[in-house]
Structure formats: C-alpha cells, structure tokens
C-alpha cells in the first residue's frame, strides 16, 4: 500500500515510543477525585449536584454551559465534598467538583459493563447523536471539541470522508497505539457508528508507518467486521501528520481554506480514542469517564513505563506516585506530547477527559538554549506545515504590525512547534507567533464585529425609514 503524507513542511523528531510494549493497566481510584468543569473546548459545564450529595459512578454531575459544551459525569461513587475553584495544571483557577470516593462502587443505571462486542449499528441518527451528547463525549485528540457538535455538520455541508486519526505523530505517546491493539474492534465499530451518523460517507483510518502492529490489527478487524467503506491507510512518519488539516491534506488531497472548518472540504476528523468513546457511549451507554494515558519520558526507567486506563478527575500526582514517583533526572513534566503538550506547573491538578500522557523529560532534552541572532537560514519556513514564514511573522510581531501579520497569515498558525523545533538560533519563535496569531485573530474578529454592527445599524435605519 502506498504511504500518504501531507504536502507542506513537517519535521522528523525521533519517535521514542518507549512504552509501546506496555499493555494498558487499570489505575485504581484514590480517596478523592476532583472533576474539572472545563475539560472541553467551549463554555464550562454547570454543576447540577450540591455539596453532600451521594453520587454514583457515571451519574451526570454537570450539564453543558452553552451550545459548544459537554456533560460531565462522575468518575466514582461517593459524596460531593465541595464545589470550588481549584488550580489546574497551569495553576489557573477552574471550578472543580471534589468527590470523596466511597469503598463500594455503584454504577448509575442503564450502563452496560459487560465486555461483549455489540456490532449492530443503530439506525436512528438523532438518537445516536443524543446518546453521544448525553455521555459527554469530546474529541480526545487534543482539542477536546464536543463530538456531537462535530458529527452534526451545519445544514448544507455534507461529509464525504470520515478520517479516523490513529497517526499519533507525537513522540513518546503510545496510548492511541495501545488502544488500537487492545480495543481494535470497538474502535472500528465506533468508526462505523460515526460513519452512519454522518450519512454513510467513506471512512479512512490513518495510521503512521511506525506502528505496523496497529496497522495489521486494525486492517484485520476492518475486514472481519465487514462494514462498508472503511479502510486503513498507512501514513508516513512525519510530524505533524496527526494535525487535522495535515491529515485531510494527506488522505483527501484537499486543503481547508484559511478560517474555514474541515467540513467545508467534506472532511470530519476524529481520533481513534474518540471512536472508542463513541462506541462505549452508543453501544454500552457508558459515559466518558475513562481514558488511556501514557506515563513515559526519556529519563523514565524502562521498567516504569506504563499505559494506564484512568478515571478522569484523578490527580496527576496520584498517577505519578502509583507509577513510582517522579524520576530523578526529570527537569520538566508535560501533559501531552513533547511537541504540543503543556508543561505541568501544578502536579496536584486533576486529569481531564483529554489527558493523554504524563511525560518526564530530562534537563538535556528539554531545557531551551540561549537565543542567538537569526541567521536567515529559512529552516523554520521549510518546517512550517502551514507554509507560513515564521521568521517573517516573528519580525512583524516585534514591530507590532497587525495588518502585515494578517497578510502573512499569522492567524493560520496551528501552534505545532515545528518552527521552534528546527531553529538553529533557538529563537522562541512559537512563543511569539502565538501572540501574533492572537493579534491577527483579534483584528479579524474586531472587523467582523464592526461589519456586523454596521449591517445591523443599516438594517435598523432602513426599517426606521419604512
């Protein structure tokens, strides 16, 4: 099979998938869990339980706070101890529900806890979407965008291709790889469900070439289950292969226009972990209260690499302690991959739906070197998968020229980190371009708002004339 890849830029970091042979283990529950109200993109969820309430595992404890928002369910059985702001991994205050876990676990009604594979796809699309929404499923590839919104494209746009993202192009991470090996069939059924919801479009499961076992297992499952129009596509190993726009480019040979959504070219991209969550939600009625997480790093001894099935709300520190503590040489702790993950400033923070790893990097691997002068080598521009010119954006940001930044498409930056990764002068390009992107997006939004206000004023004036 020919291997596909995206057409612009990209880098080739060493993949370091050290935890790839570690089977998924179930992480026990601590005495207390803290469930964040902001574990999805969009408005934070609103708590619907009160302090002192007894809640069962899988029970709804918070409802969506807006159109783009999601339900949150209790990951454990116990009593609500407090509903208060708590620091997340960046140290910012976020509303959390604190639950004291009781000894005995009682699951909420209607959840199928058996292991039997349910392969029939429900016909009723609306009911399926409702189930996905009610189970609080969000995209688990990083952005945590509510899945039911993404699977329900605006009228007039039609999905042509569902791309299942199994690229896992970030170095070190192996959680997607493990679920593709261990929960293969569930993922395929999940993909078939989403395919159905989207109106029977074709489905491509993209997997990078460095995971041959996963490719084999998924291909086998696809042919055994026999759903129509699902195929496994091998992708080249190249970062950021798993970026939404890059994946569409690689698989469909189409590019999403600046500012447009993937659906505008007929694409819907979902992570394999999301497919698993969709399967559990639709076929088992099980809300999204677990996810898989890799605990790894260059300074983590081989025997302490793990892939855990964790309940959301478990503090990161509990997971780290369970895995044997912070390795001695660790200099930085990261939630997510080394290219796009976020540094952990507060290890007491609770895990959220989108947590995919705890990564420990040593001083040598991660500390940034002193910034020196730009030698105009153009490596950043070669690496940028969006075809931008980071050196130019950097210069324009320093000059504060918002109009030129917009012209140079600062707003299209996907913050993948390729520019800074490849800069020989160690200029913190992305740090600054992220600010520049904010400036450009701000200008675009302000203009849109002004245009809207002007249009409304004109409309009001026209009506007043009548």
């Amino acid at each position, binding site marked *: 099979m020919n291997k596909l890849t995206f057409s612009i830029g990209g880098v080739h970091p060493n993949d370091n998938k050290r935890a790839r042979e570690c089977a998924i283990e179930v992480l026990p529950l601590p005495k207390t869990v803290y469930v964040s109200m902001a574990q999805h993109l969009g408005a934070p969820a609103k708590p619907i339980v009160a302090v002192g309430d007894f809640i069962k595992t899988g029970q709804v404890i918070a409802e969506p706070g807006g159109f783009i928002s999601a339900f949150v369910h209790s990951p454990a059985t116990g009593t609500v101890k407090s509903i208060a702001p708590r*620091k997340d991994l*960046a*140290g*910012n*205050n976020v509303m959390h529900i604190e639950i004291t876990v009781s000894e005995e676990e009682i699951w909420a009604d209607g959840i199928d806890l058996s292991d039997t594979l349910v392969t029939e796809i429900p016909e009723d699309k609306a009911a399926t979407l409702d189930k996905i929404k009610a189970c609080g499923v969000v995209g688990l590839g990083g952005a945590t965008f509510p899945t039911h919104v993404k699977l329900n494209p605006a009228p007039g746009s039609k999905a042509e291709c569902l791309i299942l993202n199994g690229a896992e192009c970030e170095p070190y991470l192996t959680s997607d790889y493990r679920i593709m090996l261990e929960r293969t069939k569930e993922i395929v059924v999940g993909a078939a469900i989403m395919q159905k919801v989207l109106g029977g479009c074709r489905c491509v499961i993209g997997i990078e070439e460095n995971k041959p076992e996963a490719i084999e297992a998924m291909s086998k499952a696809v042919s055994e289950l026999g759903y129509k129009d699902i195929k496994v596509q091998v992708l080249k190993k190249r970062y950021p292969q798993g970026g939404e726009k890059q994946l569409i480019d690689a698989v469909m040979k189409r590019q999403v226009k600046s500012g447009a959504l993937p659906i505008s070219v007929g694409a819907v991209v979902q992570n394999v972990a999301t497919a698993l969550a969709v399967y559990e939600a639709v076929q088992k009625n099980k809300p999204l209260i677990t996810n898989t997480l890799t605990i790894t790093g260059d300074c983590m001894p081989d025997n302490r690499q793990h892939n855990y099935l964790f309940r959301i709300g478990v503090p990161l520190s509990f997971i780290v302690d369970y895995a044997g503590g912070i390795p001695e040489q660790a200099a*930085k702790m990261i939630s997510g991959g080394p290219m796009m993950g*976020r*540094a952990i*400033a507060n290890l007491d923070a609770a895990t959220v739906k989108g947590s995919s790893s705890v990564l420990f990097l040593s001083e040598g691997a*991660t*500390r*940034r070197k002193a910034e020196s002068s730009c030698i105009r080598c153009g490596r950043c521009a070669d690496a940028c998968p969006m075809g931008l010119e980071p050196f130019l954006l950097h210069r324009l940001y320093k000059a504060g020229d918002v109009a030129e930044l917009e012209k140079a498409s600062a707003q299209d930056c996907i913050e993948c980190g390729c520019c800074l990764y490849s800069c020989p002068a160690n200029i*913190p390009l992305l*740090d*600054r371009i*992220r*600010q520049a992107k*904010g400036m450009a997006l701000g200008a675009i939004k302000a203009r849109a708002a002004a245009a809207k206000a002007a249009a409304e004023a004109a409309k009001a004036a026209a009506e007043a004339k009548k």
Partner: protein
Amino acid sequence: MTNTILWTIVILTVLGLLLSLILFWVAKKFKVEEDPRIDEVEKVMPGANCGGCGFAGCRAFADAAVHAPNLDNNYCPVGGNEVMKKVADILGYQVTEKAPMVAVVRCNGSCQNRPVVNEYDGDMSCRVKAALYSGDTGCAFGCLGCGDCVNACQFGAISMNPETGLPVVDETKCTACGACAKACPKHVIEIRNAGTTPRNTRRVYVSCVNKDKGGVARKACTAACIGCGKCAKVCKFDAITIQDNLCYIDYAKCKACGQCVFECPTGAIHAVNFEPKKVEPKPVQPVEPVKKEAANE
C-alpha cells in the same frame, strides 16, 4: 574644451531651473491646508509620542485638541498641567487642573515574600508567560517579573529590581502615561494619584491584587491581602471596598490618614511619602526609607 565646459554649465543651469520650477509647482498644487495652530500646539507638547493621552501621538493629540470644543477630554498626562496651560493659551480654552498621577505597582510578591515553585523557561515576556500559565509562584494574580512594563516605558521610569524581581517606578521620571499599565497582562500596575493634593504627596495603596481566599493567598505570598476587612472597618472616609477577598482603596476618597496601614495584618497596604516614624507599623513590615517604599520595595 572650453565649449564642453560651457555646455555643461548651461545644461546644468537650465536643468536646475526647470526642476526648481517643477518643485515649486508641485508644492503649490499639493499643499495640504492645515490649521496652523496644530503646529503650534505640537511644539509645546512633550514629543514622546507615548500615546498616554489616548491618541496615536503628539501630533494626533494636537489635531484633536484644536478641533475639540474644549479641553475636558484631552489631557496630556506626560506634560501635565504646565503643558496643558500652554495648549489652552494657544487655543484660548480653559483648562481644568488635574492632580498629578503616578504608576503604582500593586504587588509586593518579592522572592522573599512569594516563594518560587517552578522555573520558567520560555520567552522572557509577561504576555507569553501569562498566556501559558499562572506564573512561577503560587500566586496566580501577581507580577510575573519578565519586565514587559520596563520595555513599554518610554521614559526610563521603570526598572526591575534584581533582588525582589519586581518592577520599580521612579516617581521623578514617571509621567503617568499608562503604557506600563496597558502592557501588564496581569493588570498589576495602576495609575493612581501621586498624592492627596498637588502639595501633599502622601498616599496609600494596597500592594496586592490576589483574589484568592485569605488562606490560599497567604500561603502563596506572605505580603498578600487576605481580604480580612480590618482596613475597611477602620477607614473613616469610606474609601476602602472589599471585593473577591481583596481590598481596594479609592484614591479619590482617601485622605491618606494612614489608619489602615497600621491595621493591616499582612502589611499589604503601603504608605508612601509619610514621615518615617509615623509609618512604623507592625514588625512584619520593616521600616523602609521613603524613597524605597515609593518604589514598592
């Protein structure tokens, strides 16, 4: 030979005359009619183009001032009353005197008061740091210490104190243009009055912006306002309000009596330009020389 020289001179002279005529014509034709007072006003402006007045620069301010019906909405914080008086004289307006203002750093989270819990390794910019996380101390509200305000100041009035890691405002240089307050992503810097009256330079402010509950705030920083409300109770002028576990002194109402300074259990309220013996408060807050305190230690 002579011919060549002659021709050269003739041609160049004619060329010069021709071009000067063109220049003259262009200057006449494309002359922009402008109120001459704009130039006059611009001349008396400080010329820093800092944007503290809300306009793009000194000329933009002059243009606005000339076209405005009065000077109520146009005030140059840098030039102060003196410059505004000159502007008013040129334009024949009345000018309302404003009390002098100064930038105040409302954070006392020095390395000693506020232990650092992690090490920032990104671009040394407060904006970048604030977008990433709450900062390298337990306090999610206070100064980030990367010096965006120092870079924003056009008058060299702010510098970082390497001992405390906090910015220091030089009152003599500060023009209260507000560039630092705008540059600060945490809104730690506020433009406040430089004294209760133009003559009396005494003033009092809360040197903390932490909105966490008392215990949390105190744990992160020993100099934090814990929102206990003692200051509000003792204030005779109703100048102190408490919101989100943080007290705030309204400088319009404050008479700088200094009662709250004595009352504050954490030393979060700072008194500036008081005579040293009067301010000697609790042992928590060691006596500071006037100048240094103004600089917010």
